[in-house]
């Protein structure tokens, strides 16, 4: 008995490292470990979702049916989207939040470490449940990631599994979001006032509020699908007095803020990286905070621009059109601020900066096509064509995914203690930025010419651009293996170049994390730092 007590005291009074063995990763409550788990899981899912995209592009390489049957093709488009949204992009940002937020605000850990562990493993369970539907009778869900009834109700055995998987993923994100809010509100170093927080922390705080507001609504919508299918309710069944259009309203009330959940932390990372490599403070810090908050607010009142063609009255179309256009204003503020930050800066172009600049340019293009579709009368032509596919892939791949890559390159030296291979990094960037445009730019033309989305076969008039798009897709897909190689190489210390504490010139002026050693010890900021950097303000 006394031995146990003695060991406890030992634990309490000394800073101890991670537990030995693999079990460490299962039971860990350390924010750095959980951040690593999230990031690794997201990277794995990025390749799983990517493989599904390769199936899609292979089938669309030529007109006619080549490799897969239409049902499986539709499963691929559906699962690709669900895996990328809920398995790759969102967990990757939660991983960055776990790793960086405590270090950026001078906190020893997340506010609720055990819940943190639980939300990660719930995510794994949710994604595995979703993946298991691929092997079920009737195939995986194939009605598109929006899961519109009545089509989705025709899903085979997979439907309840997909719905429970959405529940698990939702609970996991909600717990993650609550944890982030509690950490930011209660764990900041005394010197870290709200308006001194790095923008990554700000954008995540706002994103977390979006998440707790919308994920329960989505959970409700899929629960209604479940009861419609199995318990004779008629929420969306016209025969029983329901209305399938109602589902679209509920879904997009969730869905529009959801797409901002994936872009707001992207803005935060871009606002963190660009000033460091421009060697200037961020231009318009407070306007960035207010712009983020405005975008988040507007995201709740524009949902029906996803459904201009359902037969809304003109007044409704006009309202949603103008409200949607309004979003361009705070977003424009952000783009101008990033540009102004770079203006007359002493810029250098290391890989994180290259990806960030590509983000600013290509995200703006995705924004402009969004503006085109916000115009209700034109949207009737673009609706459900490859034009919308091109639009949202521009805002997700060369925007969110590029910024995740940038974040990877930017913080890898801090996480691992070694520099990554800069030459391969730049090679990865240049192949990616060229191929991503070869992949998605022709899809604008396909969409304007009338090619519908979610089809496995198409008229021969679309053959040329589809082939070019597929070639771009294959190159983009394969080139991402370079990133995987770099991550593994850096973890192993392949370059042999030890990272300094601040890694990037004068980075310590921009963020607290750069005042810590590289790699940081297992426990950091057990006593809060006395001062915080204010260069970013």
């Amino acid at each position: 008995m006394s031995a146990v007590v003695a060991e406890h005291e030992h634990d309490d009074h000394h800073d101890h490292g991670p537990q030995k063995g693999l079990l460490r990763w299962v039971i860990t409550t350390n924010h750095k470990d959980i951040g690593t788990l999230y990031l690794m899981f997201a990277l794995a899912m990025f390749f799983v979702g990517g493989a599904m995209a390769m199936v899609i592009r292979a089938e669309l390489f030529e007109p006619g049916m080549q490799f897969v049957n239409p049902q499986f093709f539709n499963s691929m488009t559906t699962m690709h989207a669900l895996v990328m949204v809920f398995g790759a992009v969102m967990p990757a940002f939660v991983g960055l939040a776990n790793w960086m937020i405590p270090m950026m605000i001078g906190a020893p850990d997340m506010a609720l470490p055990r819940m943190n562990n639980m939300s990660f493993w719930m995510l794994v369970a949710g994604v595995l449940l979703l993946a298991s539907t691929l092997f079920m009778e009737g195939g995986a869900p194939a009605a598109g990631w929006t899961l519109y009834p009545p089509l989705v109700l025709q899903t085979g055995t997979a439907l309840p599994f997909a719905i429970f998987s959405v529940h698990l993923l939702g609970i996991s994100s909600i717990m993650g979001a609550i944890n982030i809010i509690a950490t930011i509100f209660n764990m900041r170093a005394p010197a870290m006032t709200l308006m001194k927080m790095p923008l990554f922390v700000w954008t995540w705080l706002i994103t977390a509020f979006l998440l707790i507001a919308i994920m329960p609504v989505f959970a409700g919508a899929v629960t209604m699908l479940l009861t419609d299918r199995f318990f004779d309710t008629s929420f969306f069944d016209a025969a029983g007095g329901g209305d399938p259009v109602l589902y679209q309203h509920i879904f997009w009330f969730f869905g529009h803020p959801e797409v901002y959940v994936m872009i707001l932390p992207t803005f935060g990372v871009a606002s963190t990286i660009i000033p460091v490599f421009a060697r200037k403070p961020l231009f318009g810090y407070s306007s960035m905070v207010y712009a983020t908050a405005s975008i988040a607010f507007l995201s709740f009142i524009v949902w029906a621009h996803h459904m201009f063609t359902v037969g809304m009255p003109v007044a409704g179309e006009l309202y949603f059109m103008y409200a949607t256009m309004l979003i361009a204003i705070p977003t424009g503020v952000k783009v101008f601020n990033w540009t102004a930050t770079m203006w007359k800066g002493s810029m250098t172009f290391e890989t994180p900066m290259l990806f960030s600049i590509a983000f600013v340019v290509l995200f703006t293009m995705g924004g402009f096509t969004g503006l085109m579709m916000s115009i209700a009368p034109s949207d009737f032509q673009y609706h459900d064509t490859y034009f919308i596919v091109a639009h949202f892939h521009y805002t997700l791949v060369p925007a969110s995914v590029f910024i995740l890559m940038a974040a990877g390159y930017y913080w890898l030296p801090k996480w691992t203690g070694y520099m990554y291979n800069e030459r391969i990094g730049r090679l990865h960037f240049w192949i990616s930025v060229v191929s991503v445009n070869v992949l998605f730019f022709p899809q604008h033309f396909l969409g304007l010419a009338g090619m519908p989305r979610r089809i496995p076969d198409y008229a021969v008039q679309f053959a040329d651009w589809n082939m070019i798009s597929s070639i771009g897709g294959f190159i983009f897909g394969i080139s991402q293996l370079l990133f995987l190689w770099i991550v593994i190489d850096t973890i192993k210390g392949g370059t042999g170049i030890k990272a300094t504490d601040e890694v990037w010139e004068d980075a310590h002026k921009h963020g607290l994390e750069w005042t810590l050693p590289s790699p940081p010890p297992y426990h950091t900021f057990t006593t809060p730092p006395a001062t915080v950097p204010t260069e970013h303000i």
Partner: protein
Amino acid sequence: MKENITQKNTKLVVTLVFVVLGMFGFGYALVPLYDVLCDITGLNGKVEGAAVKEISYEVDKSREITVEFMSALNESTPMVFRPETKKLKIHPGEYHTVNFYAENKTDKVMVARAIPSISPGPAAEYLQKIECFCFSEQTFKAHEGKTMPVRFVVNPELPEKYKTITLAYTFFDNTESSVKK
């Protein structure tokens, strides 16, 4: 200090969990809200499920409205279903009866329900039905065919801008859920 943070965390988490529960409820609250909105604004071509009384209007001879009739079957409902009149030119305030023909193509008894939809949506409230096969579920014996009337009037208060009104019915096979009940 440490206790203090734990208390603050607990308080915040409890508040946020209530927000989450509230938003889950809000998702469900959207269902009645949507119906109320559709009712008030007449959006979506949703119409009253019950008959109105036949009262005589002053017939507006000055204008003519085209009323079109359409029929559709949900998914693969095994029926024949068609309007016997495709379109009708009428004056607002006149009462008319048109017939629809529906036939069960299966060897079993079928319970089906026709759901109406009127477009343009804002005109829906002016097309009033005195009698309709859509007011209740219809039971068909095996291979039975029925001719079913709809008696309606277009309220003379219909705004001038509407020249054509389309009345569409979709038949849904409700046999399974009716049997369960």
